[in-house]
């Protein structure tokens, strides 16, 4: 290997960040892909296509002086892709439940998305999981808005979801904040989990995820 190559490696090994797997869920057309693209490359496409199956991007974020590498899986919201997207839920660290503020039914479906996620991600019942609810397209004119902020807040409170935000991928409002909020939520739960359960398991478990090996994108979560 060439020197430049090994330099690269060097850099990598030096900047080893915590990796977090994020999945974005929500009805087709609520703007998931736009949110991701706004977040990752600060671009917005007025005429974006429906996602086929999944899309994947990496992005580093700095939070409280730490750098986190977010591995973002943007899923296809259309029903016909259901069997294609669900396999990607497993091992997620963060789940973003997205709806469009101009689309009541997409908001109603949030519950469905949450359930689907919990089922396929294999999250143990009763465990806290960092969900964040995102009401996208906050830029729409008031006449077109179908979901008032209050209604969303009420729903989140009822469902013990503490992180929620309204965003607009179109005019870039709150997009960075939404992702940061998600990571911070994860951090809160993580530090709590660290305190509460010291490592008990010393048997060899095929699928066990070492709490210190967060570096993997793909190790199954679900045991935290």
């Amino acid at each position: 290997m060439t020197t430049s190559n090994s330099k690269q490696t060097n850099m990598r090994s030096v900047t080893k960040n915590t990796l977090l797997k994020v999945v974005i869920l929500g009805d087709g057309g609520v703007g998931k892909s736009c949110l991701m693209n706004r977040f990752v490359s600060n671009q917005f496409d007025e005429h974006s296509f429906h996602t086929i199956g999944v899309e994947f991007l990496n992005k580093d974020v700095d939070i409280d002086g730490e750098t986190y590498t977010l591995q973002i899986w943007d899923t296809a919201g259309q029903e016909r892709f259901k069997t294609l997207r669900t396999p990607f839920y497993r091992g997620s660290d963060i789940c973003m439940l997205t709806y469009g503020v101009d689309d009541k039914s997409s908001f109603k479906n949030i519950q469905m998305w949450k359930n689907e996620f919990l089922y396929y991600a294999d999250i143990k019942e009763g465990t806290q999981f960092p969900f964040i609810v995102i009401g996208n397209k906050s830029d729409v004119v008031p006449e077109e808005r179908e979901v008032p902020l209050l209604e969303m807040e009420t729903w989140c409170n009822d469902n013990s979801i503490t992180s929620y935000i309204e965003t607009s991928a179109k005019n870039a409002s709150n997009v960075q904040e939404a992702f940061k909020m998600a990571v911070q939520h994860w951090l809160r739960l993580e530090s709590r989990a660290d305190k509460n359960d010291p490592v008990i398991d010393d048997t060899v478990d095929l699928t066990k995820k070492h709490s210190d090996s967060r570096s993997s994108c793909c190790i199954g979560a679900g045991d935290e």
Partner: protein
Amino acid sequence: MQSTEETSRKPENMWKDVYKKLQKQKSSDFQNYRIQQVDGGFFEKFGSLLREHAELTAAREAVEKRRVVEAFAQAVPARHDDDDSENDRPLPTVESGDEASLSSDSEVEGDKDRTELIATAWNIDELYCEVLYEILHNVGCDVALEVGQTALFSYAQDAFKMPNDKHHHFMELAEKKEAPELLVNVEVIEAKDLKPKDSNGLSDPFVTLYLATNTTHRYNTSVKTMTLDPVWEEHFALPIAENNKQDTLCLEVWDFDPAESVKEKLGKIFDVKGVKGMRKLMKEIAVTATSGQHENELIGRAQIPLGTIPASGMTMWYSLDKKNKVTRQGVLKVRIAFSSEKNNQVAKQEYRHMLRMILMHELEVSKVAPHWWCGSFSPPGDQLLVQHVVQSGIPAVEALLCQYCVYAFVHQSHALSLTLFANSLEKLAKPMRTDGVSEEDCKLFWDATKRLLPSCFAVVRKIRKKNCNEKTTMKQVTEVLKILNHIHSLEPPANVDLFPATSYPWATSADCADRSIPSTLNDAVVRGASDWLDYILENNERPDESDVSRLQSLIQIIQLVRSDLQKAIEFYDKLFQETVNFQYAKALYVYYQVKLSTMCEPAVIEICKNLKRLNYNGTSNNENAPDPLSEGTSLFELYLAIQRFATLGQGLCPADYDSFHIKNFHQWFHGGVAQWLDIAVYKALQRIEKAVELDTLTPVDNTVKYSSSAVDTLTIFYQVKIFWEQLNWPDVESCYTFIAKIIDDICRCSVFYADKMAERVDGLGDHSDIYEKRFEVTTEWCLAINNIDYVRETLEPFTKDLGMEDIIEKISELKSPVEAQRCQHTLENVIANAIDTVRNKIVELLETVVSKMAPAMKRLLIEGAELCNQDSNSIDRLMMYVDNNLSTLNRELNEENFDRTLEIVWDMLAGTLKEIIQSNLDKRRPPSFFANLRKTLNLMLGSFKNPDDYSSCDVLKKTENLLKVNGLETADLIHQVHLDLAEDFRKAKDSPFGEISVRVKFEENTLTVEVINARNLIGMDSNGSCDSFVRVHLLPEHKFSGIDKPKTKTHNKTQFPLYDEKFVIKLNPEQRQLEDGLILFSVKDKDLLGYNNQYIGEAFLSFSDIEDTVQSVETLSQIHLHLGRPTEKFMASDGIRALEHRQGDKLSKDFIKRFKQRMGT
């Protein structure tokens, strides 16, 4: 670096070769086997061993099939004499349709034929007499020689079952008999409007003919059952005495035994089936007939005086009368004519009766097996028949036709060889086509054909049921097809119903009117397939109602069906196509695909919907594999089975395949694919764990630096790939997503492998003895690292192998290039991510190694610092330690990883040094400590293979510098600070403080310095001007003690002073030779009182930059120097810091104090 090319080329080759290579490695083979045991050869079932597996399956299928066939044969015992099988069922039926006959699966129109037997029997005496007569008058010499007359008589007696007394009686008659001079030929054609006699409102009519002068010599037609409009079309020749032209012909229509219907009677007698039964019936009827004890009832009679008949003959309707009855009892149509010779039609009728009698006799006597008889009679039988043909002058074609008809009739109760019919038809086809046959014979021909056909179709239907060998079946099928082909080439007359509904209850074609040979053949083929499938289904064992056994049973059914199709292709298809232009295999396929689709689709969809997720939290203990696993596996097996079935269809019916329902079978499985991928990962993880466990951590051979588990892991990946290929999923959108998932999963497997590998070597190389605990880098560690790297290298080629490019291209076509590009980016990202993640794992492991080495290295450094210059074997030992470890790493790791290791080592050393320096500074260790430490470090770096490389590590370089400055004695350190400051100033492009110009030269040991002027000096006074002078210092100060520090005059209130002063300084040779000597020009602002002169700025000139010349200084070019001041940053430099640390040191304390003033304010 030469290896660069090799390494970069390697992954691709490696990936392709890995599997081959693996198979070459025997030990690995064994290991492989052991790994497979983890999951019972999960991948192999679908993976690389698929072909072998397929062969195995084929063999199993063959056995299976044979078993089923045998079972089938046993289950339906009657079928072994096949065509007649249906005759076991309660005897069907009579011509007119009663309900039972319609529904029963009869192939034989038994009743009508049987009633014909009655006719034969009733005329048996007449016929017998005729036969005897013919024997007496045998013509030709040949036959008589072969079989004696006596033998013929006795044969005839046997064949006709004549009791002796009757035989003698008839012999007498025959001997006396002379060729009649005149015959009245009567054809009884039909009757109409007969009066019913039976309770069912119908009758079983037959006609008795006799001459009024000879009432005992009666002739009978056959009995037509259950009808009031019978059609006989039978011929009779009654001899009349010449003088008896006044005789009367009597025709009586009778109802046969009204007390007991023919049907009942036949039913009773036909309990005994086959030839024997028929013979029995004939005999019984014969007895009844001769004894006259039958309970028949007369319907009506007609009397025709022979005198009323013209010589040319006539056809007439006669009304039937009955004594005491005024009303008409019906009408009878007859044709009557005179002739002097035996009428041809009568002769043929006789011939047919004889044929039947003799054939039946021979079949019984020589116990010919079904399907066996193919046309040869015993010599006496043959002779009787030939004589009849000859003596009655029946033309060959007509005789042949008679044979065909009789054989077809007998065939119904006792199967004859089909070859017989094929041959007959071969000869008859032409005359039939060219109208060389009378209308009546034509009718007979089609009637016989109608009888023959069901048995032909039965052969096709029961193609699978033969328990005899393939050859016999083939032969039979061949003959059947020939027969069908001949018949198909002929046009049946419009009024012939060749396919009576009662004979084809199994035919599926809607309307029997439209039935033809091809359509019925198709029906027969389909029916055969459907019977076969029904049988399979009935016998398909399902141990329980679980989904797994449901799936397994479907798989088995498909396999059986497929092997049936394969057999069809192999054996029959060509035959069918060539003979009758019928696509046999295709017809089967069309049927099967519908059936299988309707069977599998709902089951698969339901099972997919109910699939349970794999529970990953379960332990790896796979004693009793979790249910979802075997469920998913069975589902996949079914998928493959259907896939193979579908592929078969594509080949078989390329034109129609698109319209087949089975074509979209994969859609049924949609919900299962994710599960399969999960299972594949699950299995792969299990195997990896096992592979690591079995790894002995020795290179697989001496050309490589990785061990078995790496190869095994790649093999597992390879299996996943094969699995993917097997799946051959047609929908591109899903394909794309699944590939993303597979790559992610493979990444996950690699990380898992890395973790397991790390666990595996953890603890290896740890030594402890009384002196110390230390860690030795072992080859195992290196192998572990190489293994992971080896796996990582394959990730990219692996992903290529999944057919990404192809999929992307298809998405581009299906959707749009833009979307395809996004998909491609996603895949690339996922791959890059996977590779990075694994690389991080490697780095993690390398860090572990280095951190394990760290304590020993730290100790080496400290001990070195303490003990340097003393002879100490502790140092040697530690040096050896580092050296050994490094050379192991260098030898065992590939270049990239070794370089990476060094980088980590540099980092580690830097960190360690910092720690040591900090703690020892705090401990106020003398500079010599740090100097020694630095020496030890350099010693240590010397044992590294690429010591230069650490220069790329800035942290280490900085740390080393720190060490360097701390190791200097204060005076030297001060000079070092000056040198650093000079370097700092040199970098400045311009200066806010101003500039001075000087000329400097050496001549021998004399230094001449001319300070010329300064420009742009920074304003120091309130009026923005300054009062400057320049002092010249020589550094390092302690080397120039005693030497003047000359200064210029002060130039007031100018920022552009012209000093123009020259100083000549005498040095001793030692001073002159100082390499790093410096001249420091300090420009200061003169304070009014002269106590507190302020620094304007300074400039340095290095001795090495000064010309040594004899020229006068004025001739040299001017040197312009920017003025500088120490910056804040400089104040934080290692040198200043080190000086600040030496608080007990007066020299350094004073220096720092003065130095700070030089910063200005």
